């Protein structure tokens, strides 16, 4: 085990389903905290938005036969676009759709494939929203997480957490927190926080996958 810190490396449809469901559970559990963060520098809806969106994702997954990782992520992305609204709906929706599309229709992908596809998804988010790391948005967690995923799931989780926390001293330059100017300083960004939740759910899914013997 010690010399295999990074299993599993074969990620199938089942893995992606479990990731999305784990993410939905985490969002549901943490929705109030996300809303609380959003009420400090936003409009107090981020938790409710993502809870609604991921509930729709869970439901759509249950009703879908899809098995390819890419198709599952694209399905989830479309749900977020149709059900969330706000800034986070199109942004997270685009993240998952682009990541999914980049993965193509393979039945199994590697962590390296996922890291690369996530990088494409994150780029699409940056393009759509016009934000860059340091602007105090979800990108502050997503960009380092995508980079670190090339190394390991755990590294991605750590990078996302660190990125989310690092938004605290930043002044927002995108999204509604930017309206606050300097008053946005001192608060953790809700979107970066939810991004860290999603990446944590990914690492947890990988942990369980490994435990259940699904890894290499």
């Amino acid at each position, binding site marked *: 085990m010690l010399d295999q810190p990074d299993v599993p490396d074969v990620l199938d449809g089942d893995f992606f389903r479990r990731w999305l469901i784990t993410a939905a559970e985490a969002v549901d559990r943490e929705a109030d905290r996300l*809303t*609380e963060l959003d*009420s*400090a*520098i*936003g*409009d*107090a*809806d981020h*938790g*409710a*938005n993502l809870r*609604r969106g991921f509930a729709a994702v869970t439901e759509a997954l249950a009703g879908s036969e899809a098995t390819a990782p890419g198709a599952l992520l694209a399905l989830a992305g479309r749900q977020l*676009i*149709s*059900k*969330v*609204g*706000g*800034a*986070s*709906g*199109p*942004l997270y929706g685009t993240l998952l759709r682009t990541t999914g599309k980049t993965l193509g229709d393979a039945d199994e992908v590697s962590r390296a494939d996922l890291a690369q596809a996530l990088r494409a998804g994150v780029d699409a988010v940056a393009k*759509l*929203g016009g934000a860059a790391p340091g602007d105090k948005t979800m990108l502050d967690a997503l960009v380092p997480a995508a980079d670190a995923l090339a190394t390991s799931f755990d590294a991605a989780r750590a990078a996302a957490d660190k990125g989310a926390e690092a938004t605290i001293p930043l*002044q927002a*330059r*995108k*999204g*509604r927190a*930017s*309206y*606050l*100017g300097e*008053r946005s300083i001192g608060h953790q960004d809700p979107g970066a926080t939810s991004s860290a939740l999603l990446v944590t759910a990914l690492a947890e899914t990988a942990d369980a996958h490994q435990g259940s013997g699904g890894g290499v």
Partner: protein
Amino acid sequence: MLINVPETVVADALRGMAAAHPELTVDVENRVIVRRDAPVADKVALVSGGGSGHEPLHGGFVGPGMLSAACPGEVFTSPVPDQMVRAAAAVDSGKGVLFVVKNYTGDVLNFDMAAELAEDEGIQVAKVLVDDDVAVTDSLYTAGRRGTGATLFVEKLAGAAADAGAPLERVEAIARRVNENSRSLGVALSACTTPAKGSPTFELPPGELELGVGIHGEPGRERRAMMTSREIADFAVDAILDDLRPRNPVLLLVNGMGGTPLLELYGFHAEVQRALTERNIAVARVLVGNYVTSLDMAGASVTLCQIDEELLGLWDAPVRTPALRWGV
């Protein structure tokens, strides 16, 4: 709160709107409010929408002389593209649809996606962004100015132009002109309580106020010790005139945020009129009331729109909606 559960607040409200306004078709499930007589032949259609919690904006402005349809999102959350596409399809007569979009990241992204999808369906779409709030500096360091009170002016004046038979480019140009000539500033005397959160969106001790707030219960640019109605009027008018120095008469909107009694709002209006008179600004027309609200927030906003003869004519043109009606 006077609700059942937070999750059904918007659907419940739409059922209530449907029962109150037979002149509207309210699709509760798909969250689209449409003029019953849509599509109106040979007329450019106007579609707007945004998060709920700002009522009567936008649903209360659907009707002859103003919007063709409105798409209400969840509370303070922009609607999703599906709603806008559905609305556009319901109201398009073939002359095209103008999307009136308040400048928030969420609204912009969702309406952009909707415009692409609607165009895929063969609907001609133009968009106008409303960004009138002088509390936000429009720079690389912000998401740009917020859309607030000027939305009413844009919807009314562009709606009148569409009613008068103007083609899409002309309706769009008028909407853009109205926005460019409009500026707003808002103040909050209390936070508001969203159904999802169930408690005030921020803590504002009595005896303090927030200057430069938007319409989503966000804190403003600055907190100060309570000011008088007179001082607030001077502050708001100066903030606006810093940015827009009207040489023509203006339309004036003195807008309540929802929780301020009409009694106080009328008194505030008197001070705004005084402040404008002292600064030699002529007021052509005025509207005082709760039109672009933030749920139960106490406070008010001031919007000025510099107008010319054409815009004045469009303002005076008849309008028949739940929240705004005059003329025949």
